[in-house]
């Protein structure tokens, strides 16, 4: 019998070694595997390279991992948020390395790793600072930059439900990076709200087939979601968006 479920978050993150590269799912707080990150903090692995869209919110989850100075480098598209004070402090103090990647290139490079693509030509970022040094090629009248896959030793993913084969479904926009990170890591560790019996997930609706999943742990409902104020993004000056609507400097994150 195949049974990828493990009994605790401690068991789920066992064996992650110092120096590992870890993808962490989530877009802000949605889809962030906070319980697994907490277990990783307790587990103690150090000198990590983290791949996430952001660089932590508030003082929990990824932000807490950063605060413990366990992260050598972070690869993300949008570190600066109104509640990214932990990262901000480390960055300004020169205590963390940042590699900034446009969000779509980040997603596609992660997908490429999972799909065995050696490299691909992307139009995103061409002519900007973020494509400096990259190979540029004109194809069919348009300029593209060559982008390489991003893979990882581990992926920590938060999904909604799983069966014991590791088949996953997500909830709403918490899906975000989960499916592509699950496929791009050597070992994929998933937390879910709920484990369900094999056969109860509709095969038409499985988003991540179990082939991409190594360990699954049920964490129940994520209580920390209630705690966090739902103030979302931040403008380019670092102010919460509610106050930013009048600044005229809004960008996407």
């Amino acid at each position: 019998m195949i049974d990828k479920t493990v009994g605790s978050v401690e068991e789920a993150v066992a064996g992650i070694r110092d120096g590992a590269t870890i993808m962490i799912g989530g877009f802000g707080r949605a889809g962030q595997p906070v319980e697994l990150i907490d277990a990783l903090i307790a587990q103690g692995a150090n000198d990590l390279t983290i791949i996430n869209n952001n660089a932590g919110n508030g003082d929990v989850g990824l932000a807490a991992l950063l605060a413990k100075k366990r992260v050598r480098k972070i690869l993300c598209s949008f570190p600066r948020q109104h509640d990214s004070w932990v990262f901000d402090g480390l960055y300004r103090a020169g205590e963390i390395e940042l590699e900034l990647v446009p969000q779509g290139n980040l997603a596609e490079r992660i997908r490429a790793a999972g799909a065995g693509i050696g490299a691909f030509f992307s139009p995103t970022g061409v002519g900007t600072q973020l494509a400096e040094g990259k190979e540029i090629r004109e194809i069919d009248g348009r300029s593209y930059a060559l982008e390489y896959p991003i893979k990882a030793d581990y992926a920590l993913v938060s999904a909604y439900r799983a069966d014991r084969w590791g088949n996953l479904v997500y909830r709403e926009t918490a899906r975000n990076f989960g499916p592509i990170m699950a496929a791009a890591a050597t070992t994929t560790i998933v937390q879910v709200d709920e484990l369900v019996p094999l056969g109860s997930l509709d095969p038409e609706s499985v988003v991540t087939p179990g082939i991409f999943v190594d360990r699954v742990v049920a964490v129940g409902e994520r209580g920390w979601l209630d705690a966090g104020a739902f103030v979302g993004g931040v403008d380019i000056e670092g102010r919460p968006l509610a106050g930013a609507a009048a600044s005229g400097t809004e960008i996407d994150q």
Partner: protein
Amino acid sequence: MTETATTATRIPREQLAARIAQDIPEGSYVNLGIGAPTLVADYLPEDQEIILHTENGMLGMGPSPVAGEIDPDLINAGKQPVTALAGAAYFHHADSFGMMRGGHLDVCVLGAFQVSQGGDLANWSTGAPGAIPAVGGAMDLAIGAKNVYVMTDLLTKTGESKLVEACTYPLTGVGCVTRVYTDHAVFDVTPDGFAVREAFGDNTVELLAELTGLKLVDASSRGIREGE
């Protein structure tokens, strides 16, 4: 300059959002950048179906939830809680950005620091030393949508034009902007530079040229100004 500026008509941000909404036909797939562009959603006609995309994995995004109905798994690109309309669909990030990069969005509306007359956009970094850089999905949106609309004040708080000959801030995308909606006027990006498509109130092409310091094409005479 001070003199002309005081006589210039400036429309409020809400009115500008309404003006942009007017140009989005029913059935369009639209991504509204975070911040001011989000306002456009409030002015889309209620009797028409326009489908909103959010880069973090949804088409058919609805308005903010009522208090007490916030679902922490359902957010927009600005990480604010939203709702899903009947007909919505969720997808992962590679699919979402494939949708953008593949040219499937009809319109995106973005903020800007600067737009060049060649259609270059600068909206992700002021290049200020010590600032923490962050780009998010701005570069993907800038090069992906069929029509890239910019919504911005024409002038910075210190009176400098955001429409420029060439951007001095770091670029987000090259030659990607199709139209700029400002508080003074609407400009199209054309092979001949900015064309004034609609000047608000009493603003004239001459005034706008003075404010921006640019040679402008007068395209507003093509039937949309009163009395011509």
